């Protein structure tokens, strides 16, 4: 596993993997690695929360285990489940061979019949360096799951009645993300290092574009970023994030545009806004006037 001496090392390593972040975030990641504390990331949709975990796995050269949260997520889909059909088959076969009861019992409740779900997989991982565990969009899960997660994250151990307690040899690096559709309990947040990811500044966004979209010209990148900065100041339902910026930039490249014009904008506006209300509002404000402002800023 790579060892970082300072937060600047983290910043550089992330940059090598094409993730541009600011200093506070790099410090937070650095501390989370050093202190073995989970990282709790919040921010608007599309500012690159999930990406942090992906890049972190890449930087640490380890496996990424992802747990996508949703309403109704429970222990059997997040932790472990017995492979019942396989167990039943084993019992039937054992019956045919007249095997002793004790051996059958021992056999069907062994690792072989256990289906690992993400949390168990992260804890039980024995080969190689500890994995990165991404718990994505935790705000979608129910409160009960949150409470359960609290338990797992504090000890990194899981008790399976039939087998016993499994404890993580090396604690995985945990990244939790939330879109804030509901507030997460303080108890969970307190066990984590918190960071709110803001929309990027113009300079940072332009740097991201130039790194992530190969073949983009500086002029077009600047125009796109000015446009995005402008639009984010507006009062839209869903302000576009970096994900939208990248999508839009590649869309413009596919259309072989090297500069923003009204036609290109109206053709590709679907990359930027995903709500009808937002499209209407954009129309009302006038595409031309927004473009004018963008061009003025560029000069």
């Amino acid at each position, binding site marked *: 596993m790579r060892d970082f001496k*300072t*937060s600047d090392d983290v910043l550089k390593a992330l940059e090598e993997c094409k993730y541009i972040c*600011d*200093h*506070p975030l790099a*410090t*937070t990641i*650095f*501390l989370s690695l*050093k*202190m073995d*504390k989970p990282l*709790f990331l*919040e921010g608007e949709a599309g500012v690159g929360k999930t990406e942090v975990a992906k890049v972190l796995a890449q930087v640490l050269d380890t496996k990424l285990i992802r747990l996508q949260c949703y*309403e*109704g997520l*429970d222990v059997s889909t997040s932790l472990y489940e*017995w492979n*019942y*059909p396989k*167990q*039943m088959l084993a*019992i039937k076969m054992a019956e045919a061979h007249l095997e002793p009861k004790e051996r059958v019992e021992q056999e069907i409740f062994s690792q072989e019949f256990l289906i690992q779900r993400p949390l168990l997989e992260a804890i039980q991982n024995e080969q190689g360096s500890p994995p990165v565990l991404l718990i994505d969009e935790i705000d979608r899960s*129910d*409160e*009960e799951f949150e409470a359960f997660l609290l338990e797992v994250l504090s000890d990194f151990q899981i008790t399976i009645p039939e087998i016993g307690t499994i404890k993580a040899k090396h604690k995985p690096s945990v990244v939790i993300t939330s879109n*804030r*559709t*509901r*507030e997460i309990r*303080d108890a969970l*947040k*307190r066990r984590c*290092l*918190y*960071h*709110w990811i*803001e929309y990027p*500044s*113009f*300079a*940072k966004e332009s740097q991201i574009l130039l790194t992530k979209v190969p073949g983009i010209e500086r002029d077009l990148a600047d125009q796109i970023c000015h446009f995005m*900065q402008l639009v*984010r*100041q507006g*009062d839209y*339902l869903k302000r576009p994030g970096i994900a939208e910026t990248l999508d839009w930039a590649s869309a413009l490249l596919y259309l072989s545009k090297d500069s923003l014009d009204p036609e290109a904008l109206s053709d590709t506006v679907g990359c930027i806004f995903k*709500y009808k209300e937002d499209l209407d509002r954009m129309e009302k404000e006038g595409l031309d006037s927004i473009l004018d402002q963008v061009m003025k800023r560029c000069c």
Partner: protein
Amino acid sequence: MSLAKELDTVKSDAFRGRRKSSMFLNVLAFCNLLRDLGLSATLSRTIDVYRSLQFILVTNKQDFYSALKTNLISSREESQTFDQAFGLFWSFLFDPDQEPCGDEEDEQLDIDSPTKGQEQEPSKEEELSLEEWLKEKPDEETEEMEMASYSALEVLGQKDFSTFKAEEIRKIRKAIALIARRLVTKLSRRKVPDSKGRKLDLRRTMRKNIKYGGEMVELAKRRRKIKKVRLVLICDVSGSMDCYSSFLIEFMYGLQNELAGVETVVFSTRLTRVTNLLRGRDVAKALKEISHTVLDWSGGTNIGKCLSGFNDWIGKDILTPHTVVIILSDGWDRGDPVLLSDEMRRLKSNCYRLIWLNPLLGSANYQPLCQGMKSALPFVDYFLPVHNLDSLIRLGKVIKPLVNR
């Protein structure tokens, strides 16, 4: 947000007396200061702050700032409080000409929000204003939510919403948000699993059938635990109803932020679904926007037509036999009473309980005589007033057992 308001509870001596000569004690004092400001700087967090300091260069202010911040805050809102407190506390220590690191960082990041930068800059001016404020009595608009809201509850509980002055409205808003949060905190409890599900629960099936020697005789079933939309608010925002609706929407907003499955729809001439508009945003601003787009007309209301629109377009997707629907309107309907009663019937058959809130019910001599109210009433399960804070609390008590079955 002015500093004076934020640092409300911290007294002059306490603040100055907190600063110690050693780094160790100063960090501790800073954590205590944050605790007084309402952040949850618990002991375990404070210990973690110290733990994190051994990994960074304490002399690098950027790192120092980030390390403290990431350990001590747990929401974006707290981030602002932290920045202000950080600037103030540590700027006394560091060379006064030097800017505290937090601001350097923020200026780098927030090229596009100059106002924010200004706000966070603990300039001489602000230090001065701190002095002034320390001599003054606490500001009227204290940020102390709980205290403000309790007194608000006592004084304003009985008062009709329509007679509120501007500053009272601010207080009552906070109280409403608090009530909503309390209500839902009590709501969240573990549910009993349902056995009438469609999926087979293999674990329980096997256990159940041990008595038959392992042959599958009884099947145990399970249902995925999904919370569907449980609460729908249909709100009249036309003309005179405006002031009442905004309070109820505030109430719903509080619920929505804590509870999955709350939908809000407003209508005057046409229906607008505002759930997304309310999600995680500034309510006051969202409300202004809603009234901007919807309040284009102030005659009578055609409730029947709007309900028909709801049943056709939105209701289909979101109503389940478990949904509680709340309608807020004074019932002055200019449309066809037959249509209204038809649509009420449709709505009633598609939901679990139907609650009608009428602010006019608050006045002692009100009788539901107008045609619209008369034709809707037979389908209504609960007919309640919603003119003051007490009636909102009462509404909370009615909703609670309904959504928590």
